[in-house]
């Protein structure tokens, strides 16, 4: 028997009608198009995509904050548009960088208040707050006013708020946004432990950090411009790239290299360069290893001296590049400049 579905979407779409000012005519912005997803109970599912890809819009729809303009969605078996009350009993959500709660209340009081909205009796709420705070390492700050918390601690408070109500389906929208490496690691290990403990818990995580998706998720959907481009386990997504060879090269060059000449070489699929402190780092994808010699010749032609060259395993970033033709940062930069 197949596992029950925690989240299901069918041809889900959302169009925003926007105008920048009162004089301007309304225009339409396509945020989601034809999204079909099935997330099984017990899965830690990742939505991976650049900023503005439609991840947050999808989360808003699934958490009953926004209606789709086409298609349907179910969470824990209930239609998000027609049965929002049933959905709400079973979910919770945490967003990165959120400033929820009240600054004049302490961490404990803020959390207790949210527990009340979920009908958790005070003694149980207080026990859980204490325990969760110990796990995430803010037990000593429970009596601090939330306005006095640093960004990292505040986000830990939000994380507790999400887990406190023991939801069947938990939505985490960029939960490690703005956190330092250590705090992000804590949050990730916390998420894993929560999932491991109960096979009926489901978690939908959106992120634009590849490593996060790779490290945590059972399955990942790659989303760009409102469309799901691929959906599978990280391993299988990467397996599609097994015919390609990935090199990372550090060179010293008088100037940025001319990418066009590299891309002209038959067998070079992708070529990206990143200036570092005193060298250039190059990400190169080849169809076969034999092409490498021609690439090296081209370095010489452009007066670039090789410092280091290494072959590496494909990452989800490579999967994204394969699907979109650009790196995630490049997509984000284009979106920013278009805005």
């Amino acid at each position, binding site marked *: 028997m197949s596992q029950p579905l925690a989240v299901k979407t069918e041809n889900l779409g959302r169009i925003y009608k926007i105008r920048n*000012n*009162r004089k301007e005519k309304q225009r339409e912005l396509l945020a989601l198009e034809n999204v079909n997803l099935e997330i099984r109970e017990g899965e830690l599912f990742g939505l991976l995509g650049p900023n503005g890809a439609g991840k947050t819009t999808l989360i808003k729809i699934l958490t009953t904050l926004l209606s789709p303009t086409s298609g349907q969605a179910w969470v824990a078996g209930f239609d998000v548009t027609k049965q929002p009350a049933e959905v709400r009993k079973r979910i919770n959500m945490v967003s990165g960088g959120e*400033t929820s709660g*009240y*600054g*004049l*209340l302490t961490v404990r009081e803020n959390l207790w208040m949210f527990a009340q909205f979920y009908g958790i009796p005070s003694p149980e709420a207080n026990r859980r707050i204490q325990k969760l705070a110990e796990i995430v390492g803010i037990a000593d700050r429970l009596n601090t006013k939330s*306005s*006095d918390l640093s960004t990292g601690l505040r986000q830990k408070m939000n994380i507790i708020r999400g887990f406190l109500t023991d939801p069947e389906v938990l939505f985490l929208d960029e939960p490690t946004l703005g956190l330092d490496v250590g705090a992000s690691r804590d949050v990730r290990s916390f998420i894993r432990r929560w999932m491991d403990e109960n096979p009926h818990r489901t978690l939908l995580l959106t992120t634009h950090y590849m490593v996060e998706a790779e490290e945590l998720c059972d399955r990942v959907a790659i989303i760009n411009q409102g469309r799901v481009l691929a959906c599978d386990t990280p391993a299988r997504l990467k397996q599609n790239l097994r015919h390609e060879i990935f090199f990372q090269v550090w060179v010293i060059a008088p100037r940025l290299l001319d990418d066009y000449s590299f891309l002209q070489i038959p067998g070079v699929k992708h070529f990206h360069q990143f200036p570092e402190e005193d060298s250039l780092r190059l990400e190169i994808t080849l169809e076969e290893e034999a092409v490498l010699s021609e690439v090296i010749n081209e370095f010489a032609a452009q007066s670039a001296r090789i410092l280091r060259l290494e072959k590496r395993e494909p990452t989800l970033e490579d999967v994204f590049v394969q699907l979109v033709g650009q790196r995630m940062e490049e997509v984000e930069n284009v979106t920013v400049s278009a805005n």
Partner: protein
Amino acid sequence: MQKSINLRSFLTASWLGWQIESNWTDPFLFATYSIIKPVAGAAILVLMYSIVTQGNFDSPVFAYLYLGNAFYQYVPAVLTGVSWTIIDDREHYRTLKYIYTAPVNIPFYLFGRAVAKFIVGTFGVVITIAAGVLFLNVPLDWSRVDWPLFLVALFLGVLMLALGGLILAGITLMTARHSYYIGDVVAGGLFLFTGAIFPLEVLPGWLRPVGYILPITYWLELIRRSLVGAVAEAFPTFTALSNGDLLLILAGSSLVFGIASIFIFRYCDHQARERGLIDQTTNY
């Protein structure tokens, strides 16, 4: 250099304030909104007066309270305009920390932000006075208005109010966001002492000194004298004082008030920074 920073802070903030104040709706609604509030406020007093006196609008008492109330609109407008900016920028737009770290003169920035409320307030004052003259026999004879006195008093008064707003802005830096405009509430409280809608003689003796130390009291008297000298003379409060005396008192008390406001603001500003309150959000 310093001068240009002050001027730039003021002008940029004025532009910003006007955008925020006016662009939430279309101009027609904005105008309606700006008219209804002051007219309703004046109508309350007019009805109270008319119920008791059976509509005797020719009495100098009516002109006294009508004009006092009309110009008193500047008090909440400017006090709130200056002080609310702290809350708006700190907790709503969350830009206060950036304003603080920019090369901006904070008091001049706050004054600038109040300009929009001052303009809307002026609109209210003009509408109220026009309604009074047209429909309620407020004895305002344009040819007999002492314009120089009026303009000087108005300028000094608005300056004094802006400095008062600065004190409230300082206090706001150190307090939470409450659900009301602190400027409006303070203006509402001072309404009692400043002889805006009744002569100070009506107050019990022990309350009057409060009125005498507030510059607003002298400002309103000067405005009334410049507009309707005859009405103002009908009340004994300041008969012993000439216009010049009153101007001098207004200027002097504004100066004292101004110096105090700068010190108070600096103190609060220092405290707020020491206690890390510049970027707090205090919603509760």
